[in-house]
């Protein structure tokens, strides 16, 4: 203590770095940081040296060579002559697709189940408890495999749809559910489809304007318009009328059995559907718990006050409780979205060609560039996760309590 009283810099001695409490923590931190940097540098250097000895110094040139393999589900043009980098992109898009679909379904299911778990109806709340406990306590890989085996073993083969005495039939001649996936109609755009699309876009804009106007009117006069039904009407009627007036330019292409498989329409592969369902059902169980926690965090007085104002039960939930609960729900929701996205890397178990299946699977295998592929893979997942959490944080900031 006596040393601390001395004016600093007057007589600085080297030993003060260790014995003077003003400098000691800095000294320790500098030493630790130096050791840490040296340690990391040594590890990386060691890796490079040993790889160089094994004639495998890191080289990313393989990314521009033809991949040589085919991918069944590709959202952009891809063939076996495309580069490994393009295969990586195809895998990335497949990962994003399943993550996007999964997050939406998981949120819808999760909110629904979380609210129902708080239901006063004994059977419903118990059923939801059973759902949550079963789904979140079994590894997600097993759910994925389970969903896939159900699709493969219980749905009919395409060939059973064939011939006079077919044992399986298409639903409304438009949907075929087979053990190779679901075949659904695909829209086709004929001559003069543009006006229909424009009218459709305009009607969506109109819905938003109408809603805003309706709320303003409600605030001014207290009258409540049937916003939902008018919105539905606006959504369908103008577009359908234009479609009929223009002579049905937008048609549907139906799947039909040709050769070995169904041709035409969209093909939703079993791998995508089973991965999507399993990830959503699994994550929904966690989201449901977050939603329940969020709702329970809202003071009972809030809903009682809302009820005293004469709001009906569903309006209390949607206008008073859920908006406040969102503040509690969103942070854990972000981590559930991240979990879902990262869990989608189990896709190869059912043969879904995601990032791990293309870059981290076949490309890695065929080129033997394990280190490079895994590094790129980690960086890609990191980038996806950081993007998701950035977007969700922006949303979180918009709903959180504004302190004035």
């Amino acid at each position, binding site marked *: 203590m006596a040393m601390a009283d001395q004016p600093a810099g007057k007589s600085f001695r080297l030993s003060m770095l260790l014995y003077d409490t003003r400098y000691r923590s800095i000294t320790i931190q500098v030493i630790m940081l130096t050791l840490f940097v040296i340690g990391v540098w040594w590890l990386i250097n060691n890796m490079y040296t040993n790889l160089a000895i094994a004639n495998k110094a890191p080289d990313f040139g393989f990314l521009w060579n033809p991949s040589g393999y085919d991918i069944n589900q590709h959202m952009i043009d891809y*063939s076996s002559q495309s580069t490994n980098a393009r295969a990586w992109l195809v895998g990335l898009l497949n990962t994003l697709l399943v993550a996007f679909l999964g997050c939406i379904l998981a949120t819808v299911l999760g909110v629904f189940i979380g609210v129902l778990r708080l239901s006063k109806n004994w059977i419903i709340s118990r059923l939801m408890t059973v759902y949550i406990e079963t789904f979140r306590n079994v590894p997600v890989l097993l759910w994925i495999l389970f969903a896939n085996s159900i699709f493969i073993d219980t749905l009919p083969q395409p060939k059973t749809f064939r011939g006079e005495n077919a044992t399986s039939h298409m639903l409304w001649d438009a949907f075929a559910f087979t053990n190779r996936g679901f075949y659904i109609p695909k829209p086709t755009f004929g001559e003069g489809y543009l006006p229909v699309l424009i009218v459709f876009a305009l009607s969506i804009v109109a819905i938003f304007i109408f809603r805003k106007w309706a709320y303003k009117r409600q605030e001014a006069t207290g009258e409540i318009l049937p916003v939902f039904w008018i919105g539905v009407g606006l959504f369908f009627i103008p577009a359908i009328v234009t479609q009929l007036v223009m002579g049905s330019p937008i048609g549907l292409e139906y799947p039909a059995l040709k050769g070995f498989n169904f041709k035409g329409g969209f093909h939703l592969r079993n791998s995508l559907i089973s991965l999507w369902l399993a990830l959503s059902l699994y994550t929904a169980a966690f989201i449901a718990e977050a939603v329940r926690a969020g709702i329970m965090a809202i003071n009972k007085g809030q809903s009682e006050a809302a009820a005293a104002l004469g709001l009906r039960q569903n309006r209390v939930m949607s206008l008073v409780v859920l908006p406040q609960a969102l503040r509690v729900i969103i942070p854990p929701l972000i981590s559930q979205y991240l979990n879902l996205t990262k869990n989608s890397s189990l896709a190869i178990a059912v043969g879904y060609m995601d990032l791990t299946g293309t870059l981290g699977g076949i490309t890695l295998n065929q080129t033997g560039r394990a280190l490079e592929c895994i590094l790129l893979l980690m960086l890609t997942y990191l980038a996806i996760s950081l993007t998701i959490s950035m977007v969700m944080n922006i949303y979180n900031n918009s709903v959180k309590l504004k302190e004035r």
Partner: protein
Amino acid sequence: MKKSLLLGTIAAVGVLAGAASAATLDDVKANGVLKCGVSTGLVGFAAPDANGRWEGFDVAVCRAVAAAVLGDSDAVQFVPLSSKVRFTALNSGEVDMLARNTTWTFSRDVDLGLTFVGVNYYDGQGFMARKDLGVGSATELDGATICIQTGTTTELNLADYFRSNGMSYEPVPIETNAEAQQQFLSGACDVLTTDASGLAATRATFEHPEDFMIMPEIISKEPLGPLVREGDEPWSDIVRWTLNALITAEEKGITKDNVEQMAAAAGNDPEINRLLGTEGDLGGMLGLDKQWAMRAIAAGGNYGELFEANVGENTPVGLSRGLNALWTQGGLIYTPPFR
């Protein structure tokens, strides 16, 4: 000063790592057990039998090497490896050698740092389908759904074959042979493709093998053989010449039953004498004793005996010798001389 010390350490570690990998023979002898990478289960080539003992054509190569080096054909630790991890496992030293239906290709040999020591089965990629599919040839497969094991050369051959024939297909990538069977049997894919020998082995495990046919087309060359890490010549020599000893034994009529008798005293054929150690010291040049080849042959028999016992026509796999007959009988199996 500090930096040079650090560099020195790294260099030392590098040299140590190099030294460790350079003496696989010493490692194997010190451990008393040969770590051999095999397939995760392919009847006839590598699969545990009812008692959990690994059996098969590839397994026999591991046993022969263990018998030659350690004197005990059971001193083998079998490490089942998926096609995806096999090269990493070998390169990282997790296994000492790989005998796992692995195709010898340019890029694997040159780029992946592996050394193929020979060919123990000349194979080619084929297709299997249910007979009631009504397809007789691979050229009629336009639009078919095809199950394929990822991480193998078959994946690339398939893409090439369909592209060059102007046909389309739907690949269903699968991780292991067991999953491929499940998907194929439930009809989730029309066709299963892999090496023709693998198809025959897989079909042998089906409940009704007669309902399935293997198509006549062979769309690729797949020379399968054992391999080791690059950069350890003494060790690759041992594995290479153990395989060659098995083949030469068939050529010279040395069998499991008569090998001990022939090795007891020098006979008329100098090559047999050199092989079995009654003349010269070929074993010593390999760093082994004179009896190494005798033990390798006694472990399971010569090449022909191993073939007949594991994958031959009288086994459920039912493969004929075909390309894998000795060169003297119109096949491709040939070895350099023991001299």
